[in-house]
């Protein structure tokens, strides 16, 4: 009698398992060299796109791109919202280690810096992919070296540039009429305004990037920062940074005993008036947040006279991706003038383009000149100089040292 009671349950379980749908593995075929043929084969594929999902605006942009590639190429784009790109790196490593060398769960990943280095060094990326892309020819490789060199690591075509970024500080003119001119002035301002400054807790990438600026600020030469660094060298060279922090943290929000979890959490503190400065890796984010009603109209951005770090963020395909044609089709679309111009709009995302204006047709250029500006976005000439990213070693050692020094109570 019991057994008959069990039947509906088993049926329901089975139905659920089917509805869940175990992801299918596809046989690996040679990839065509022609974008038209790639697009033809991409039709009907579902591309799993692992990308940081911490910004609703960016999420909506990706959703828009998904609609466009479905209309244009019949490709379905599924955004897997990561909290940190390292999650995708760990997953790719785990899958390949477990012998899943094809039919992997990630088709496309938004990446740069240390995460790119980990994957490239282990041979976990498919490529080179840039020769396969139609729109890569429009990329500004002549004037923007960071589209080919990611945190000092040559991309060798294993990732395609997607957007450009530069670090900026946010302030509210209603609270701070005149922002600090340069880094020493910023440090003086912190000392003079106790409790009004903080940075996101590393390894949040904005928090870590703030710390990297201190490497420049204490005078470590650019060439040294561009090279790998060992533990002993780092300890000696970065010593002044930690001396500086030891002196500054008592004047930080919560006396430097606590830091906001993420840059988003810092924006929240900034909006609430608990701190007077926030920071972003996107010069247009302030404008974007003002337009979204999350920051007040009086918010502006500043870049200290020494300049701030700028970089490029990229798109890459894992070596075990199940839908490489679909992924290539999506990347090529994201590099198109249509997609790049929309991305530039501060009401949408406000992310810098990687395309060279002189390589575009007049109609394509018109798409970019139609993008509205915003007073909270500094024009490029007021953001100079753009500092290069240090070698990824510096960031990793910095995060480690920071955590062991400030990650304990008392």
């Amino acid at each position, binding site marked *: 009698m019991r057994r008959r*009671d069990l039947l509906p349950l088993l049926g329901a379980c089975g139905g659920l398992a089917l509805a869940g749908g*175990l992801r299918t593995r596809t046989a690996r075929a040679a990839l065509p060299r022609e974008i038209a043929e790639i697009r033809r084969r991409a039709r009907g594929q579902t591309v799993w796109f692992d990308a940081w999902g911490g910004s609703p605006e960016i999420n909506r942009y990706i959703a828009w791109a998904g609609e466009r590639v479905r209309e244009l190429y019949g490709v379905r784009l599924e955004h897997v919202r990561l909290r940190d790109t390292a999650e995708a790196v760990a997953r790719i490593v785990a899958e390949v280690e477990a012998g899943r060398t094809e039919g992997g769960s990630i088709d496309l990943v938004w990446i740069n810096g240390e995460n790119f280095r980990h994957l490239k060094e282990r041979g976990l990326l498919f490529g080179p992919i840039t020769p396969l892309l139609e729109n890569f020819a429009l990329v500004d490789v002549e004037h923007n070296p960071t589209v080919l060199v990611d945190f000092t690591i040559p991309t060798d075509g294993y990732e395609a540039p997607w957007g450009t970024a530069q670090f900026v500080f946010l302030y509210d003119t209603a609270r701070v009429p005149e922002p600090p001119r340069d880094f020493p002035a910023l440090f003086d301002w912190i000392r003079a305004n106790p409790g009004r400054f903080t940075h996101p807790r590393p390894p949040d990438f904005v928090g870590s990037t703030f710390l990297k600026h201190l490497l420049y600020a204490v005078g470590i030469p650019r060439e040294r920062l561009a090279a790998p660094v060992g533990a002993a060298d780092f300890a000696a060279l970065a010593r002044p940074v930690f001396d500086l922090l030891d002196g500054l943290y008592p004047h930080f929000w919560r006396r430097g005993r606590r830091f906001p*979890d993420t840059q988003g959490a810092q924006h929240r503190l900034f909006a609430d008036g608990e701190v007077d400065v926030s920071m972003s890796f996107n010069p247009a984010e302030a404008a974007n947040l003002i337009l979204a009603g999350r920051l007040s109209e009086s918010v502006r951005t500043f870049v200290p006279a020494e300049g701030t770090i700028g970089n490029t963020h990229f798109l890459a395909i894992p070596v075990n991706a199940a839908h490489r044609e679909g992924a290539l089709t999506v990347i090529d679309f994201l590099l198109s003038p249509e997609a790049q111009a929309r991305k530039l709009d501060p009401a949408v995302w406000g992310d810098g383009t990687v395309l060279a204006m002189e390589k575009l047709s007049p109609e394509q250029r018109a798409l970019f000149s139609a993008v509205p500006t915003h007073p909270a976005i500094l024009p490029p000439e007021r953001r100079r100089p753009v500092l290069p990213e240090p070698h990824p070693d510096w960031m990793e050692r910095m995060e480690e040292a920071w955590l062991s020094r400030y990650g304990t*109570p008392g």
Partner: protein
Amino acid sequence: MAFPLRHARLSPSGTASFGRIALPAAALALPPLAAAAVPAQAWTRLAAQPALLHSALLSLWTGLASTALALAATVAILALLHGRSAERWAGAPLVPLLAVPHAAFALGFAFLIAPSGWIVRLLSPEITGFQRPPDWPVPGDPFGLSLIGGLALRELPFLLLAALAAKARIGLVPLEASARTLGCRPVEAFLRVGLPRIRGRIRLPVLAVLVYGTANVDMAAVLAPDLPAPLALRTVRWFFDPDPAGMDLALAAVPLLAALVAVAILLWRPLEEGLFALLERGGRTTAACGLVALAVLALFGAGSLCALVLWALAGPWPFPDALPAALGTRTLELAAVDLAGTLRTTLLLALAVAALAVAGARLLLRPGGAPAPLVPLPLLPLFAPPVVVAPLLQRAALALGAEGTVAAVAAGHLLYALPYALLVLEGPVRRVPPPLFAAARILGASPWRRFTELELPLLFPAFALAFATALSVSFAQYETTLFLGGGRIRTLATETVAYLAAGDRQLAACAGLLAALPPLLGFVPAALAVRRGLSRRAAARTGPRCPPR
């Protein structure tokens, strides 16, 4: 431990004695089980982590203190309400508080207590003189008091509902009458004679609260101290550390966390003993404390919910404005677009999980008889925090190639929904009068007919309640969704936390409120079914039809 309405027929005597002995013992067996999966080098790396002991003690302290606080407040309020008419309706206003996910509640609570929060804003600048928020260390004070307060507030309604239901079910009148003739005041009579009988019946819920408090992630992410954070929060951060070596640390931290939960359960016994002794002897002082507890609950509970609603509708809301300059549905509309797919997934998942949980629970029980011997086994997850279980399940799912599928997430949810369905159903199913079924069997009614025509109408309120409860448990699952869904399956619970991490309080509030609606909607029919005595009428309808031979 997730959410509500398991209060109705919680923990009859059978499971209560089970909860006293077998479950804590099983909790002790979990750490070595989890330790088996840890690579050897991970232990030394974990031991080298700064302030590990501090994190562990913080988890233990916040778990024990918040549980003790919530339980003491529950008993005090019970004493206060004893013999008053409010006792009958007091449970209703608590339901919305329970329907809001933990993370969203924490968000609202944090906005109340922060130096830039609502309370300070209401007093600024007129009374406090603050033009800018002061630099006070809340939330996230180093002693974990904000977290303890938030946890206790969030768990108090749950315990109170469980206790009110237990109190309504046991006949206290004759006992107390005799106590009063011996010279006790009504409150004293209740505390000294009635309370010990309620205590056994709320033991399981209290332990579930303790386990949640010791190893929670979603509330800790908003309210807990940092540098170091409590162990559960650090464990999850290690799991998602940009450095791939963080995975080793996380895997080694999981058995440590399980051991910590076991220690909390062991320490809880003497603590509870002392607490009850104090409360029983307190007499009218206990009832007076109940008034304070009720005031705090009303102020902070309602305050947190109102803050959530306002933030869902607010644009910029700078300090020290007591109210947002403008309200609008802009964020809600954005959230509706951004969350449409998520909402559908969440709902379908919860409906499937709830149906399976209720069916599974019913299959494990015997109408009119003692439960099958294995019934306590599905209750075990109540004592194994999701942050410990989910990573282990993820490993298993990865090995099966099922990670990131709806089926895997549903299985994880079911693990936690089934015990709550069992708790709700056990009493009612066991209390079905055996002759009813004996007669049906003699008449040759098939098991299915016996179920649909006798049991279902008779027990409809209990089934509805079990369904609503399982639904809400599924809605509240954060860690199981996170780990088993592999980022591919998103629910409102994970999205609320994601919005919070992104710093978007408006969207997080929207997601939190959206997540509260379906459990509320699920519970309303269940509550109506109970009220209207549907069961009796339905039973009367099916009565006359005699099964054919």
